[in-house]
Each structure stands twice: as structure tokens, then as C-alpha cells.
């Protein structure tokens, strides 16, 4: 019903008061009565009010101190996080009922004053929401907004109070292959012009924000002299700079592991290089600082680079210099190229960002010259994979060998599994991986030719129970599905489409014909659209069917009005594939 935020600046502290009035209409919505409030351990938190109201807004129950318990916030990606979660429950048995609660958090350290998305729950409507900010007249802010809001402001006693409000902000549901909903939900973000968090700085420009990061990190990227001497003894003989960078990167990969411990300002400030040197672990910031320190030891400049991670990240709002990132990588300009280093994993090659950070804006932190840059995008060549099937009949089974050379995201997943999962987990994953393609895995060999190549080779013995059917007298072989996304995802789209990476594959299927089958093969088929291409050819070589299928789909943003064309393109391919069986007869 109501979701209001009141912010006040008081002597460099931010006093944030949030209040909620939530109507719970039926038992299925009772989960809304379980309240969880997150805050940092260093914040001062106070629950101001929490009451349950009946449908006439009479108070039924009040939350007492003993009803609230505090625990560490759950986090999948963090080994330990000192963020806290205050939890209480207000549930009732007569519907509708209301819960009303408010709390205050006083923050000393903050980068954002507000990151307000009035549509609070993704799946529950908000009726009314407001944000107000009271600050001294000389306290400058930067603001960024998406959508229209009702605005008012008042000035009194040297303070300015601004208020934004909105009724029934729009809800945006989840959709596959769409930009994150937070790119288009109505919202207001506010940062102070001047940063006073760890060290002083400014949000005036990306250069200024980068300068603040550089100052926060100052002095952390240094190793003890004794360690530098050891490194020089080990790597000092390498003259070629590219080779040296690569060797140092491998040194990082072979001697450290990723563990995220997030404490206090730990959200932004890295552990120093020496922390990683001792513990041999760290989070992305610490490991990147350590990598930077390794390069520093040899006088090689490199740049700490903030980036939003994930295969489908939220785009950076370029007109709003601020902390919009959740990950750090390292950029190393060399004479011949620019090298990008992902420092948290041991299984990816040198100078390979992969699906996690490719093709997006990032903030390159350079004292005196920070700037937004774009990370290199995975190209069709980078993701091109080949699958070669040699299939044969064994009685009424279709069985054979699949040799795959994987690149791109599939390569990354297999490389992760190979390095990080136990033998039991690995078996489970691989069976599932092949199962999803309709195969039963009998035996598998995973082979990586070189740690420098972003590709992996799989040789699998497989059964294909779903690809051979005996329907009465008819024996029907259907081809393994292509790696094109399913058309249904793009049907009747209400959200635009974002394809972050291209898809590119060549499948070759050879079916053994030692039993003198006569073959009925489908016609060759090809389809070309602005989105990509599909081509399949059939031929008989020594009476063995040889099928070659090539697919390609580009990476791009597609506005809603064009998504129907993509749907049609993919549907045509699927319709063709489902009606193009291979029929052996005697």
C-alpha cells in the first residue's frame, strides 16, 4: 500500500527511515508477513514500529524486542559477510490484514544516499511510494532517474527538503534473453557530490569517481621487498613482456584461490596485496590488487577496472558517475595489445574475460585519468563450437561417439566443472549436461590442449534413445537439436530482447551404414535473416549419411517490435528440424 523513504543528512551521517504498510489479502500472500531487514554491521539500526492491523486498521499485535532476532545475512557468493539481517514475523489468520513497520538506519559510511525503486517487490504491486531527502543547502547531490515522479521541495532553516512520489509504479516481470528489469523500472538514485567514505572524493565525473577509487586503493598494490626479490629470481630472466605478464598471471592462478570475506568498508576497499600473499586467497578486489602488485614488481603498469559482472548485466548509466559495479578485473596495456585479466579463477586462460565480463562498459581506474572503457566482446570465432557425431545402430539402439570442441560459455562451464567439482559432482553434472541434449552418457574424456586456449575437447560415448524411434515398420532418426535458443522464449514478447553473446556452431553427423541400409534423407535447407543463419546439407558418402549443419546468431539488442521476426526465424528452423527425419530402410 505504502512504501516511503525519508532521508536526512546530519553531520556527515545519513539517517534513513523506511516505512511500509502492506495489505495481505489471502493466505498465499502470508509470506509478506515475514519481514527481513538488511543492514551493515557498522550501521546503527533501530526498529521503530511493527504492528499487525486487522481489516479495520485496529492494532491486533505489536512486535516486541524478543520477537526480533538478528542473524548474519545469507550470501551464496560470500564466505563471510558481516551484513546483518533483523527478522520478525507478523502473520494473521483473518484476511485481509495489514502489517505496518518502520525502521531507522544511521550510516556513517555510504556512497549512495538513495537507490529507490518504488516497485518494492517484483511480484507484488505497490500503490504509493515516496522518497524524501532533507539536506543542508550546501550539501550537493547528483541524481539520476528513470520515469516520471511528482516532485516538491521546501526550504527552511538552511535545509532543503525534496520529495518525489509515485502512484502505482509499473511492474516488470522476468523474461529470458531480456535486459535486467532494473534497467527499466522507475527509480531514483542519488549520490552525494562529495564522497567521504574511506577517503575523500567526488562523484562529479567518472574521472573523479575513479580518482576516489585510486586513492582508496593507494599503497595496497605493493609487495614486500623480500617477495619482489623472490619473484625476480623466478621470473626476472623473461625478457618478452607479454610472456612475463602471462607467467605472472599463471603464478596468480596457481597460488591463490577466490574466497570473499566482506567486512565493513570491505564492499569497496580491497585487502592489500600482502594479505593475498600470506593467505593465498582473496576476493576479486584483493586478487586484482595482488595481480597488479605482481606486475608492479616488474615495472609493468596495469589498471584496476570496475565492472558489472554476469552473463546479462545491467547496463551502466553513463551519465551518472557512481558505484554501479560488482566486480574488478585488471587491464594491462602492452605495446602490441591490451590484455584483460580475470583474477578470481584458475581455470580460464590468460587474457580471456569470457561471458562473465565481456562486451560492457567498465571503469578503468587510473590516477589522474580514470575513464569508462568497453571490455572486448566475444566474437563468433570466440564462441564457435564444433560437434562431430559418429553414430551407429546396435540392435534397436542408436549409439556412438560425440567429439565436441567447445568454446565460449559452454567451454567456461566445463572448465569450471573440471577444475572445481568433486568427482561425484562432476559425474552428476556431465550426465545432466548430456541428458539435457537427449543423450545417455556412457563414457567421457575431457581434454584441454593448453591452458592458454579458451577451448575444451570432449570425447563422449553416448546412447541416443530419444533420437531413434521404431514406430511400427518405420525406423526414424532425428538429429540432435541445434544450440539455437528455443523459439517459444520469443513468442508474444512484452520485453525487448538482449543477446549478450553470439552463437556459432558447426555440427557434423555421420551415420554408419555397414548394415546396408537404404536411406531417405531430407532436402537441404537454409535460412538467412538479419539475426543469423541456418544451413543444413545431407549427402551420402559410401552409403553413409553425412549431415553438416551450421548455425549462427548475432549478439545484439532487439526492440520489442522486432522480436516477432526473431521468433519466426527460430520457429521456422524448429519446424523444419521436427519434420526432417532420416529414415533408414532395408
Amino acid at each position, binding site marked *: 500500500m505504502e512504501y516511503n523513504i525519508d532521508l536526512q543528512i546530519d553531520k556527515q551521517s545519513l539517517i534513513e527511515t523506511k516505512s511500509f504498510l502492506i495489505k495481505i489479502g489471502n493466505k498465499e500472500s*502470508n509470506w509478506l508477513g515475514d519481514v527481513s531487514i538488511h543492514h551493515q554491521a557498522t550501521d546503527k539500526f533501530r526498529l521503530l514500529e511493527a504492528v499487525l492491523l486487522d481489516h479495520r486498521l485496529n492494532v491486533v499485535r505489536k512486535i516486541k524486542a524478543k520477537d526480533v532476532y538478528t542473524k548474519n545475512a545469507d550470501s551464496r557468493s560470500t564466505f563471510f559477510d558481516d551484513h546483518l539481517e533483523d527478522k520478525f514475523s507478523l502473520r494473521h489468520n483473518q484476511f485481509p490484514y495489514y502489517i505496518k513497520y518502520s525502521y531507522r538506519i544511521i550510516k556513517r559510511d555510504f556512497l549512495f544516499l538513495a537507490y529507490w525503486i518504488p516497485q518494492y517487490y517484483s511480484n507484488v504491486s505497490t500503490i504509493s511510494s515516496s522518497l524524501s531527502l532533507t539536506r543542508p543547502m550546501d550539501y550537493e547531490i547528483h541524481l539520476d532517474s528513470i520515469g516520471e515522479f511528482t516532485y516538491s521541495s521546501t526550504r527552511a532553516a538552511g535545509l532543503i527538503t525534496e520529495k518525489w512520489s509515485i502512484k502505482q509504479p509499473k511492474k516488470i516481470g522476468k523474461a529470458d534473453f531480456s535486459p535486467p528489469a532494473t534497467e527499466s523500472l522507475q527509480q531514483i538514485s542519488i549520490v552525494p557530490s562529495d564522497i567521504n567514505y574511506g577517503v575523500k572524493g567526488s562523484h562529479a565525473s567518472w574521472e573523479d569517481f575513479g580518482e576516489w577509487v585510486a586513492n582508496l586503493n593507494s599503497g595496497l598494490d605493493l609487495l614486500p621487498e623480500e617477495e619482489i626479490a623472490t619473484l625476480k629470481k623466478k621470473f626476472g630472466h623473461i625478457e618478452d613482456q607479454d610472456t612475463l605478464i602471462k607467467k605472472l598471471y599463471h603464478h596468480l592462478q596457481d597460488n591463490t584461490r577466490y574466497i570473499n570475506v566482506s567486512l565493513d568498508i570491505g564492499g569497496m576497499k580491497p585487502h592489500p596485496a600482502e594479505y593475498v600473499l600470506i593467505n*593465498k586467497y582473496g576476493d576479486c578486489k584483493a586478487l586484482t590488487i595482488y595481480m597488479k602488485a605482481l606486475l608492479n614488481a616488474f615495472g609493468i603498469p596495469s589498471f584496476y577496472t570496475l565492472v558489472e559482472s554476469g552473463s546479462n548485466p545491467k547496463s551502466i548509466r553513463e551519465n551518472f558517475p557512481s558505484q554501479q559495479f560488482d566486480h574488478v578485473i585488471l587491464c594491462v596495456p602492452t605495446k602490441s595489445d591490451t590484455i584483460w585479466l580475470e583474477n578470481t579463477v584458475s581455470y580460464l586462460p590468460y587474457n580471456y574475460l569470457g561471458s562473465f565480463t565481456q562486451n560492457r562498459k567498465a571503469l578503468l581506474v587510473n590516477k589522474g585519468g580514470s575513464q569508462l572503457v568497453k571490455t572486448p566482446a566475444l566474437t563468433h570465432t570466440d564462441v564457435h563450437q564444433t560437434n562431430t557425431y559418429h553414430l551407429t545402430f546396435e540392435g534397436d539402439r542408436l549409439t556412438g561417439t560425440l567429439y565436441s570442441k567447445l568454446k565460449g560459455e559452454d567451454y567456461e562451464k566445463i572448465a569450471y566443472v573440471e577444475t572445481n567439482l568433486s568427482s561425484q559432482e562432476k559425474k552428476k553434472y556431465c550426465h545432466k549436461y548430456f541428458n539435457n541434449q537427449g543423450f545417455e552418457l556412457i563414457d567421457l574424456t575431457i581434454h584441454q590442449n593448453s591452458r592458454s586456449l579458451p577451448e575444451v575437447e570432449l570425447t563422449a560415448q553416448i546412447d541416443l534413445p530419444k533420437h531413434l524411434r521404431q514406430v511400427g515398420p518405420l525406423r526414424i532418426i532425428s538429429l540432435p537439436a541445434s544450440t539455437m535458443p528455443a523459439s517459444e522464449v520469443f513468442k508474444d514478447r512484452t520485453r525487448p530482447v538482449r543477446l549478450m553473446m553470439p552463437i556459432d556452431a558447426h555440427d557434423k553427423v555421420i551415420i554408419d551404414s555397414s548394415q546396408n541400409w537404404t536411406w531417405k534423407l531430407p532436402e537441404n535447407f537454409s535460412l538467412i535473416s538479419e539475426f543469423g543463419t541456418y544451413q543444413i546439407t545431407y549427402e551420402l558418402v559410401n552409403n553413409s549419411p553425412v549431415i553438416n549443419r551450421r548455425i549462427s546468431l548475432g549478439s545484439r539488442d532487439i526492440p520489442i517490435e522486432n522480436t516477432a521476426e526473431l521468433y519466426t526465424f527460430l520457429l521456422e528452423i524448429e519446424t523444419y528440424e521436427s519434420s526432417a527425419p532420416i529414415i533408414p530402410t532395408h
Partner: protein
Amino acid sequence: MNRVLRSSLPIRLLLGLFFIALADSSTAQRYSQEFGVIAKDEFDLEVSADDPEAEALILFDVGDSYFLEGNTGFDIQFTHSKRLKIFTTAGFDYAEIEIPYYVEGNQRERIEEIEAFTYNPLENGTMERISLNQQDIFDEVKNKYYRVKKFAFPGVKAGSIIEYRYKLISPFKFNLPDWAFQSTIPTLFSKYTVRMVPFYEYIYLMQGGKFDSHKSYTSSELPRYFAHVKYNDFVHEFTMENIPAFKDETFISSTDDYIIKMDFQLTQVNNPNGLKTEIITTWPKLIEELNDHENFGKYIKKAQKFSEKTILPSLDLSNKTQTEMASLLIDYIKNDFSWDRYYAKYANQSVKEFYAAKQGNAAEINLFTIGLLKAAGLKAKPVLISTRDHGKITMDYPFSHFFNYVVIIVELEAGTILTDATEPLLTFDRLPPFCFNDNGLIIDEAGVGWVGLESPKASLNNYTISQKPNPDSLKSNILVSSQMTEFEGLKMHKKYGTDDKLLTKSLEKGEYLDVHKVSFPGRSQNSQYSFAFTGACQLERVDGKFLISPFLNLPIDENPLKYPSRTYPVDFTYKTTDHYQSIIEIPEGYQVTYLPSNQNIDDHLMTIKYNIISTDKSLTVDGKIEYKKAVYGSGEYLRIKNRLDTIVKTFNDQIVLEKRD
């Protein structure tokens, strides 16, 4: 400021140590079991000899429980030390340690003296030892009762040896630490020593495996004194060696049911003044104690009184049969009170607090319900159970910690029912599937009674399909109506509710089926779940013939049992029956040229029926799969696997239509 940063810098500890040579012959491998002493053979180990795929190996795992005299009596001091060899990067997970401890009110367990070291070989033949910085040990609150101390070993690489030890001081004599000999990686040596004092007596239960050594003796240390009683500890040592890794399999109730471990139960407290207090030596005594327990038996009595005064006057129970009364009262609780998702066998809130909060743990809900049922004159009793994820109980041993949950048994005119008032989607006389775990103990003053928890009724999935194939459009128009009952219905309610989009997505699973409209006719409060949909499915044309799947894409299309053999039972939780009926209209001018063969298999394991009745204008295909057991023994595995192969093949077979000449 960064606390880790501040603390970590001063205590960098890299020591050059020499290996301790323990090998007394050139071939024998010798491993040290002394904390801090590393044998060369331990570094030379490159894989686990018996399990070369293992990513890590437990070199030793040693526990020692000791009764420590404190100001208010004894505490248990549990000392645990463990050493592992990490073979690959996949083994790094074992270098992140969590030590749980329990907090209840003012009493709490404490973790003390954590020490942890990583040992890495150096190129000059020595090794480095890296110690854990105490500031890198974190204390995390998991929930109201459990906390963990957690830390990550520093300096870990493939090839590292890591070891740690700590002390857990516990005031909870009921919780003498149990011991798991087996882990998800192999263990070379596991030893648990329990040093008993004459004031507490325990029994233990061993699950799986056999001790390689079991010694019991009186400690030869100097005598101890407590309340003028002179005594020596009586020591039990339990040792196992070369324990293989536990391999998980699908369709098992809980890992805890199969892992090699020993559990302890306090049975008697012997006061120094000679007074003996038997804690639990028999089931009758356990029952008696529960009946007298403030948060169990007495809670029921209070709930009964409270219900008589507060609830019953507002309910009309006149002219109702016992069954009708039970239904009304149990549904009243289900509708008016919410479960907070905590499993429990004891109440935490008072009766009044629970009634005011309208929410509580499972014990509060069910014990309160028993009170309400008794207030109405019904014979209702609590039944202690162990939920599926909590492991199996053993009826031979009266261990209270076997149980983690309480449900209700009610005697009615038509017989007894088992119920759990936490689950509003089930009818008043059903337990939810997580309770189906062998037997429950009836807490009845009259004597010891057990009740089987498995539901006698099978859950039904029923699909009625009508198909009108149109060879010109290569589509079949379809109409499907489905009913799921019992636990299959509950599963659907929880998974999809009335979210037609979610259900459509699940039904379509690809391009074969195009769902036009989903409806939910005739939904009721109980676990029955009905839905219907209209749509179209693809009509496959192959070589001039048209192929029809009678049951669309609804039956299972692959066998979930993959392995050639199995050591554990196959536990499907409850019995199910799947019934499909499809009426297929034969289009004008077309004829059927192939029909799948009928199948009729019926024995004590399963029924598989598949029959087709054909006329010129239509086909009626009827299929039934009945799983006659919820749990199949490992000896029945191959037969069940073969049956599932038959089901996959038969129920996905297709019918062929051809144009008449």
C-alpha cells in the same frame, strides 16, 4: 576500517620445518596421527590409493569427549583434530571449515582454542607451515539456535596438507557429541575417544561399518574428585581405518541413514549422593517423561484447558460425528494458524503466546491441536517421528534424539487417522510426505505403541485426452483434463497454484505442444488439483505417414534409474498411480496402419497396462501405471529399472495414420 587487514599483517608465519621421518622400512607408508607432526609419506601421497578420483583425503580425524568440572557441575569438552590432504583444486572446499555450535537461552556451547595450519612442500626439501590468523575466524549466526565458527585455511594449493583442532565446551549433557566415521571423501584413520565419569551414563548406536578397534579401560591417570567422590575416568576408544567415501545416490531418504556413524544418548545421571536418575532407558520411560514435560505433555493439557474456555464456545460441534468434529477442528487450526517452517518436538511459546501470534513451530501447532481435539472429547495423542531428512529411527533403541517432529494420531469411529495441522493443503486426515519415514512412536500413557507413517493411499495422476488430428495443417487439436490427488495434488498446488503461465510453460517443454488456454475447474481446499487445457500439438509427417503420440508429451520419457546396480533402497516416498486415457479421432479419408501392442503386466511390484480399442472413426488408448510400493528394496532395483524402461517405451510409442488409397 578493515579488520582483517589490520590483524593479518603482523602475524605472517612461514616456518621452514623438516619432515618427520616415520617410515621404518623402504616400502611401508607411515602417516603421523599427532597434531603438528607431518610425515614425509603424507606429502608424497598424490592420490588416495583406494579412490584415485578423490579430490582430498582425510588422513586422520580424531575426537575426544571429556567431562570437565566447572563451577556448576560438569561440562563436556569435545576436542576435535583433523588432518586432510588436498589433491586437486576441487578439494579446496574442504579447506573452508564451519564448526557449528548450539545456543539455547542463557546456555550456550563455546568453541575455543581453534588452531589451523597449512603445510606446503618447498623446493629445497623442507616445508612451510602457515598458521591461521585468529582474526580470520568468523562467528556467524545461522538461526535462533545455531551459530558457526568459520575460517578458510590460508595458503592452500593442490598438494597441501591442512590440519586443525579446537575445543567445544558444552553444558548440554544430553548432547554428547556424536561421531561420523565416514565423509564424502575417503578417511584413512578415524578415532573417537569418550572418557566417561561415573555420574553420567550413555548408550550408543553404531550405524554401518565395524570398528577396527574398540578398547574400554579405566584411565591410569591420577584419580579425580567430585563432591567427595573419588573416581577414574572410564575410557572407550572406537577406531576405524580406510573408510571409503560416501557415494550419494538418487531416491534415498537421507544421507544420514546410510553414512557410518555413532550416536550417543544419555541414559542415567548418578548423583554423588547415590541418587540415580534414569533419563531414558526404555520407551515407556521416554513416554512418561514427555507426558510430564512442560513443553510437551503439560503443554497439551494447557492447550486443552485454553481451548475449552476460548475456542470451543465459538464452534458448533453439536450433532457432529467424531470424524466431522476432527475434520472441523483440524481445519480450524490449519486455516487460522501458520507454521513458521521450524521442525520441532517441543513448544517454545506458551499456549497464550502461540494463540496470539497465530504462528508457531510444528510442535506448537500439533500439540495445541491435540489439546483442542481432547477438549472436544476426541482421543488424540502425539506421535514422535523423524522427518525424512532427519534420518531413520531404530525401534530397538530408546533414543529421543532420533525424533525431530511431532504429529497427531486420532481415534475415530471409523478407525485411527494420522494428521499434521501444519499443512493446510492436505485433508484433515493426512500427513505431508516429509513425514513418511518408517514408524512413529505414539506418546500414550497406556503403553508403547508404534504406528507406520506411510500413507496407505496411492496418489493419482489422471489425464483424459481428446485429439483431433488434422493432416492438412499438421496439427492436432487437443483437449486435456487432469486430476491429481493426494500428494501429487499437493505437489502441483505448491509448484504451480493457479499460475496458468507457469503451468503452460511446464506443459509446453518445447515446440511439440502449444497450450492455448489453461483453466482450473473444480478446485477445492484439499490436495486435489485439477486443471484442463486446450491447445494443439504437432502432427509429425514422416515418409507420407502421420505419427500421433496418444498421451502427448505427458508420460515420463526417460528412465530416472540410470545405474546398472544399487546398494540403497529406491525410495519414491509414496505410492502413485498414473492413468492416461486418450480418445483420438481418425480423420476422414485416413486409416490406421500401425498400433502399438497392448501390454498387461501385473505383479506385486507394479501394474503396467496399455490397451487400445479401435473403431473406424476413433481410437481409445488406455494406459495405467501403478507403483505398488513407496519403497523398493535394492534387490528389486533391476526389475524396477526394467519396468521403467518398458513404461518409457510403451507410453511414448506412436500410432501411424495413412491416407486411404
